[in-house]
């Protein structure tokens, strides 16, 4: 597997990985805000978000129809749709693409569910590797506390209930997350993850995150020809509005 830079794409892909509650989504959101403010062509893509596959995935999850194999395949389908229709064209067009979770999420989860590691890796063989992958590593207790503090209602698959680890969703979630963390740690060297100390406070992490990104990627190459107005933040969500079209081209 090669990175997008090695494959001579003009864009670059940055992925963040880590457990639920590791703070990676906050960090990549803040990174996106910064890159936008710098006038850089940036696109953000989330795991499990393809419109086409969504209804099948949510039906499978709601009705608890998924087996380890179909769980793996339906997520690979979702990923392929986003990869071929969004990520590839944007990377050809010289965008910085930010991915909240990438193939490593599948590697970690599916293997934990019992799928053979080389089968899962083979499934995603069509995808290039990120140019940088940040692994937001927390102590298991820290990320568990962040998620479980409010005693949220855990969903069946999210808690790994299909693995029959425990009949208590919270206990199941703990064991499941622990196993996923082991998988991430085991992949760290193989895929050259940049390990971030996600026990640190938000601001400190973001300063380091931005520094590392600008050291590894020559960001000025990815600037728009003329700046776009900053998209407004939507209050209460972690998302910015997409501004349609490149004004410079108009």
């Amino acid at each position, binding site marked *: 597997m090669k990175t997008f830079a090695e494959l001579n794409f003009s864009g670059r892909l940055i992925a963040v990985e880590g457990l639920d509650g590791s703070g990676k989504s906050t960090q990549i959101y803040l990174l996106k805000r910064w890159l936008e403010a710098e006038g850089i062509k940036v696109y953000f893509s989330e795991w499990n978000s393809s419109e086409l596959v969504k209804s099948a995935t949510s039906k499978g999850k709601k009705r608890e*129809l998924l087996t380890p194999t179909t769980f793996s395949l339906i997520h690979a389908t979702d990923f392929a749709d986003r*990869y*071929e229709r969004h990520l590839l064209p944007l990377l050809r067009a010289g965008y910085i693409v930010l991915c909240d979770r990438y193939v490593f999420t599948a590697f970690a989860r599916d293997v934990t569910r019992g799928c053979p590691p080389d089968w899962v890796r083979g499934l995603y063989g069509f995808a290039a590797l990120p140019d940088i992958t940040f692994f937001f590593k927390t102590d298991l207790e820290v990320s568990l506390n962040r998620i479980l503090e409010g005693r949220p209602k855990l969903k069946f698959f999210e808690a790994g209930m299909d693995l029959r680890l425990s009949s208590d969703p919270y206990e199941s979630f703990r064991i499941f997350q622990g196993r996923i963390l082991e998988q991430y740690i085991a992949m760290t060297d193989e895929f050259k993850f940049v390990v971030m100390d996600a026990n640190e406070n938000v601001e400190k992490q973001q300063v380091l995150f931005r520094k590392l990104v600008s050291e590894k990627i020559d960001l000025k190459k990815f600037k728009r020809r003329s700046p776009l107005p900053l998209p407004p933040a939507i209050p209460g969500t972690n998302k910015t509005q997409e501004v349609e079209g490149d004004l410079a081209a108009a």
Partner: protein
Amino acid sequence: MKNSETAANGHRRFYGHGIPHVKCGDLAGKLIVVEGADGSGRSTQIARLVDWLETSGHATVQVGLKRSTLVSSELEKAQEGNILSRTTLSLFYATDFADQLDNIILPALKAGFIVLADRYIYTLMARDLVRGMDEAWLKNLYGIALVPDAVFYLSVEPQELVQRNLSKNATLDYWESGMDLGMSRDMFDSFVKYQTAMQSAFRKLQKTYGFTIVDANRPVGSITKELRKKIRVLLAEK
């Protein structure tokens, strides 16, 4: 490793890693696959086999492409709009197959049923090969599949297929004509070209997967006779 034509009991296995937590030894039934293009007489033959098998006291279950609870309607919708790229479509079909394998085929075999599959992974692989997908990637993907006890490929000349499809529906199916490939704007031409390409993909797969090619240019009755004869032998093996 060249694999055997059938997986007689005791030699039951998956093509690759198979399905997590499933043991082949528990699968007492038989898996019989009928492959072939639309118009090759697949459904007719399967209906006749089901009649015959059930009359003889065998319990049967039928599976086929795009019949899963999980994704069949979504897959149908996506195909209508023709908006999925090839890898996505390929994985969507694989999900549909895996759902039926996990939830219908394997449990039915465990219960000693005869499972009749109206097409199996070979059609899916042939379609993808014609669309330029990587063979090694496909082999890994379908390593989840169980090796059937018998696979019959109903082979019909493309020129004959086109006649049968037109006399049945008075129209050719977009996908069965391979219109997404842009081989020809003319649907008739495209159908013949696409089905010819599919047949050579099947011949290629036949070398690896060793299925039985049945000459289906013949009358329905003689084909049924040949299939019954072969299945009878299979059922006698215990």
